[in-house]
């Protein structure tokens, strides 16, 4: 079984356990192993874009240096961790940025052995495992489920540094849902911002931004939404007023878990608002 160094990040250790647990268990079913890297630290949660604030890059540089001692790939799952680690790696590797890059590496005790390719879990499924193999492992396909894939900002922008997917109309999660037997719906706001961390001091703004996204998914006939960011999941799922027809907001790993046959107790459905288990049962998926 191929083993990957894995960076969970702080939120996945606490408030987004169901994103992490399903991912690890589903990986084993699909045929790879997430080996948590030792003594990781916070990625910083958001990329600091000022040109002179090198201190803000040290946390992610240390993680990358530690990871470089294990191998040349590092798998992430949280969209924010992925964004920060990938952008800092890109900054370190940028041609013409050698002086700053060397300075940053001297700030940390850990020796930086080599550039690390930061891979999102979805990239592992698509490019390392391959859709055919994922499809073969989906023994309980999500037949008939209409899903809106919500990527948010951090997975796709900035385009060059992340080189992940189309920043206007990303596809990788739609492809995964299709491979798992679901029907990805068209969805205009798949890469619109949910308001992100503005929830801390401007809950009203994050709530309005998130509601627009939910309404659009519903208008296109989605029955559920999937995401890979704990903060997107929170803003979409917890800021709204729950009603009977409200769309469940799943982590993509939860639906992957359903499709590869994880038990209900392994899906962490207590995390999601409403009655996600009842919903999945009503669709004949649990």
């Amino acid at each position, binding site marked *: 079984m191929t083993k990957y160094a894995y960076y969970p990040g702080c939120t996945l250790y606490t408030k987004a356990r169901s994103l992490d647990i399903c991912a690890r268990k589903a990986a084993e079913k699909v045929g790879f192993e997430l080996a948590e890297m030792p003594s990781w630290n916070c990625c910083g949660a958001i990329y600091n*874009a000022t040109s002179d604030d090198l201190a803000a890059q040290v946390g992610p540089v240390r993680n990358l240096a530690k990871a470089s001692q294990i191998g040349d790939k590092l798998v992430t799952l949280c969209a924010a961790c992925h964004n920060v680690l990938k952008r800092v790696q890109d900054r370190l590797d940028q041609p013409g940025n050698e002086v700053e890059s060397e300075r940053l590496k001297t700030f940390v005790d850990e020796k930086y052995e080599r550039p690390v390719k930061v891979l999102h879990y979805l990239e592992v499924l698509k490019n390392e495992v391959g859709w055919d193999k994922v499809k073969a492992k989906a023994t309980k396909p999500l037949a008939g489920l209409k899903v809106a894939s919500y990527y948010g900002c951090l997975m796709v922008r900035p385009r060059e540094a992340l080189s992940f997917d189309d920043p206007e109309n990303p596809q990788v999660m739609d492809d995964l849902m299709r491979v798992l037997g679901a029907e990805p719906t068209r969805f205009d706001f798949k890469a619109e911002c949910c308001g992100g961390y503005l929830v801390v001091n*401007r809950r009203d703004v994050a709530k309005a931004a998130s509601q627009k996204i939910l309404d659009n998914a519903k208008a296109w006939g989605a029955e559920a939404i999937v995401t890979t960011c704990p*903060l997107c999941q929170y803003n979409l799922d917890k800021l709204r007023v729950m009603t009977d027809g409200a769309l469940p907001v799943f982590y993509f790993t939860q639906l992957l878990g359903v499709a590869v046959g994880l038990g209900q107790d392994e899906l962490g459905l207590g995390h999601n608002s409403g009655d996600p288990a009842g919903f999945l049962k009503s669709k004949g998926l649990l």
Partner: protein
Amino acid sequence: MTTFHSSSELLEQIEALSGQDISDCYQCGCCTSGCPIGEAMDPPPSKAIRLLQLGRANELLDSEGIWMCASCLVCGTRCPRAVDYARIAEACRALVLRSRESKVDPDTVTAPELEEIPQQAFIAAFRKSSV
């Protein structure tokens, strides 16, 4: 109100911190029309850049708008002149924060919020908006 040096000095600092050339913007408004927070952002991206072009950087630094940008990067992704407004807003926030003025006070977070909101939001909000 934060007091800074002359607007031209400020503009130089904003350009250095953001890596953006303010004169690149030709005011097409693509950034503002795509901004998901645009309705709540005063001034919105294109107007903010216009203030800088007109030598009114102090007004931008005193505005609410720079604190509303969540760095979703839609504006810069769509800009036909490759101006990244999120980095300009970041530079403006940094200048205010470096004058020791916080926008978000961690002490105002309530216990239920602390219990519920993912910590990535707190870390991000405090890094962006607190000294």
